[in-house]
């Protein structure tokens, strides 16, 4: 062994850092357990989870979580590895779903020719759909070769939106129009068929695990290296024997195939397909999965898919969403307010401000505090004499929402102690706004909260939960 030089000393700086016991343990486990055992553990967890006696809603969430994990994995090929900002990805998800709907239902030509449709078994439909998606992926990829960066994003966004528009507007006897296609066949092959959500959950888990294994292999092969090389520097990749155009088209095609595969499972589980299932909202959600989890990694994409889906479900339940909201406020305060004595001043100030404001407003006008907080359970009763909620809270809530945004902008602009002081009323306004308005509209609130979670992630871990930090080439 060569004598240790300065370089080596720097490289080993990590070993010298003092770590807490549990963190040291975590690091050791992280180093010892290889990738394949981890995949095995994930598969095991996936199957055991299905056996826990989930209720209908929990089954739905579990299925969706795995479905979004698959979608995020496919998007990761195009965006995370090949570095192509593809906003038309959602169309391939739709293509898979509608493809399945056409080949495994009464729908194909039935309304025109009364043929009774095509009822192919899933083992035949899925390969057909995947091949078709791969070919369309190549076609879109060939168009996309001419574009890069922002231009690629805009054009693919149009292509993706065109899918929903076309499906919605062609003759309803072909693709069902806005009524969608329904009463599809379930997955059936060799005499059996899968009807329950739990059944599709297991199908999705198997697909996810197999896909993760395949993509892991691909990532470490010449293809994976070529994708990442093209992402980092296309010109250099070109003169290092990599056919850049072919490699990009391949990434598009692979992403399309994965999305279409997810689409077929989705269509069979839902037993129907609608154009609105493939809108820009869903696309943004898949991107949120990838960004949150960490683009460029398999584990990150899967974790992102699960976290975003579960968070979305939690946000539809008033109590769980309250936990998320107040938890997020506390995490941000604990993470960002330093030193500790400032934190010790800020939290009592927020608490005190609320009760004082409630008492003063209550003394002036009784109706101004007549409403009750939107949160239910113990959080609602704890905040009964804290937040100001008038009897008719809708207009009040809307105004407060605008005030909250102005206050947030002010907090961001201010520095030092002033910011600290501004934080106190801002948090209080946010809590009032939440209780008066946001909990009433879970649909909108869920989107705002996912946005807020992403902002927090950006500050704390810009590379995503499991991502690795990346440098951009100037």
């Amino acid at each position, binding site marked *: 062994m*060569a004598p240790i*030089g300065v370089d*080596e000393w720097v*490289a080993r700086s990590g070993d010298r850092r003092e770590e807490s016991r549990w963190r040291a343990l975590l690091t050791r486990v992280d180093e010892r357990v290889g990738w394949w055992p981890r995949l095995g553990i994930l598969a095991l967890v996936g199957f055991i989870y299905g056996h826990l006696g989930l209720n209908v809603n929990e089954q739905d969430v579990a299925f969706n979580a795995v479905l979004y994990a698959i979608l995020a994995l496919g998007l990761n090929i195009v965006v995370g590895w090949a570095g192509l900002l593809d906003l038309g990805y959602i169309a391939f998800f739709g293509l898979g779903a509608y493809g399945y709907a056409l080949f495994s239902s009464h729908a194909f030509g039935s309304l025109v020719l009364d043929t009774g449709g095509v009822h192919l078994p899933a083992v035949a439909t899925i390969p057909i759909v995947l091949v078709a998606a791969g070919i369309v992926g190549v076609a879109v990829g060939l168009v996309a070769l001419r574009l890069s960066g922002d231009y690629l994003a805009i054009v693919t966004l149009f292509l993706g939106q065109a899918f929903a528009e076309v499906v919605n507007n062609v003759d309803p006897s072909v693709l069902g129009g806005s009524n969608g296609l329904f009463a599809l066949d379930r997955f059936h092959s060799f005499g059996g068929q899968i009807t329950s959500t739990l059944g599709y959950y297991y199908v999705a888990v198997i697909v996810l695990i197999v896909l993760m294994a*395949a*993509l892991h*292999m*691909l990532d470490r*092969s*010449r*293809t*994976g*290296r*070529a994708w*990442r*090389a093209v*992402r*980092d*520097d296309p*010109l*250099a*990749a*070109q*003169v*290092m*024997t*990599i*056919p*850049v155009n072919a490699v990009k088209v*391949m990434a598009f095609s*692979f992403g399309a195939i994965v999305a279409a595969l997810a689409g077929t499972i989705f269509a069979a589980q839902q037993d129907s397909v609608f154009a609105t299932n493939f809108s820009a909202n869903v696309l943004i959600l898949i991107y949120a999965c990838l960004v949150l989890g960490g683009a*460029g990694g398999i584990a990150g994409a899967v974790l992102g898919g699960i976290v975003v889906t579960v968070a979305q479900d939690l946000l539809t339940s008033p109590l769980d969403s309250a936990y998320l909201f107040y938890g997020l406020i506390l995490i941000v305060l604990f993470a960002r307010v330093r030193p500790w004595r400032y934190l010790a001043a800020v939290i009592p100030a927020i608490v005190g401000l609320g009760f004082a404001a409630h008492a003063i407003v209550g003394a002036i006008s009784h109706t101004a505090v007549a409403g009750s907080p939107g949160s239910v359970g113990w959080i609602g009763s704890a905040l009964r004499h804290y937040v100001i909620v008038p009897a008719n809270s809708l207009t009040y809530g809307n105004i407060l929402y605008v005030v909250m945004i102005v206050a947030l902008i002010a907090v961001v602009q201010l520095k030092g102690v002033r910011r600290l002081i501004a934080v106190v009323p801002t948090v209080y306004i946010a809590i009032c706004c939440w209780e008066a308005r946001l909990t009433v509209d879970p649909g909108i609130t869920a989107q705002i909260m996912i946005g807020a979670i992403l902002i927090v992630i950006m500050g704390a871990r810009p590379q995503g939960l499991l991502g*690795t930090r*990346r*440098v951009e*080439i100037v």
Partner: protein
Amino acid sequence: MASLLELDHVSHAFGGLRALHELDLNVAEHEIVSVIGPNGAGKTTLFNVITGIYKPGGDIRFDGKSIVGRPPHRITQMGIARTFQSLRLFLNMTVKENVKAATYGGTHATPLESMLRLPRARREEREVEERANDVLGFFGQRLQGYRHDQPAYSLSYANRRRLEIARAMATGARLLLLDEPAAGMNPNETHEITELIGRLRTERGYTILVIEHDMHVVEGISDRVVALDHGEKLTEGTFHEVANHPEVIEAYLGRNPEALQK
């Protein structure tokens, strides 16, 4: 001596600007040829037309076959690899992956074979691993051990230059085009790179065409020196012939005022 690389009346223009004009150049097998010239003389453009990034007028032959009009990745696969003056590594990939990425053209496993680890994929992956170790081993301790798994962006400037050369070697090329390999290096590192370029020929049998501004490096390595200015060849010959050539001196320093008065 047989020419490995032959340029025959090669011209290239950017709009009205003639970057290369009717340039003839031959590089024999196992020869080290330096290209010198003031800024804007067309040196890097020369590399860009040889590697296929620009399509020039005239003809370029490598090993007797014309390469004009072929895409860059094919040209590299035929045996011409280059480094970049401005350092264009795959910064977010590890040192070893950078080298392995350059073996893409020499391997043929399809994605499906790679996913399933079929025999051809396994064999090629083994060969790629060996080649990467071999190429990185050429640089001694500099790119060894824990460095293999470090991301390229964490390397020092000098190590990035070494990795660029390693990556070019991994393509399986016979001719290396080195674009200012000593730029930005301290005297010690410059000396080291001079030796390294010599070893590339003696130990590995490469033919080398190099652009360099550091005249000590040029003097130390070159069999032959070619001086360019305004896209045309001023002269070529041994280092001392070229360095003392009046037109070369004029190109670098401007016209001698006394000579003007005469």
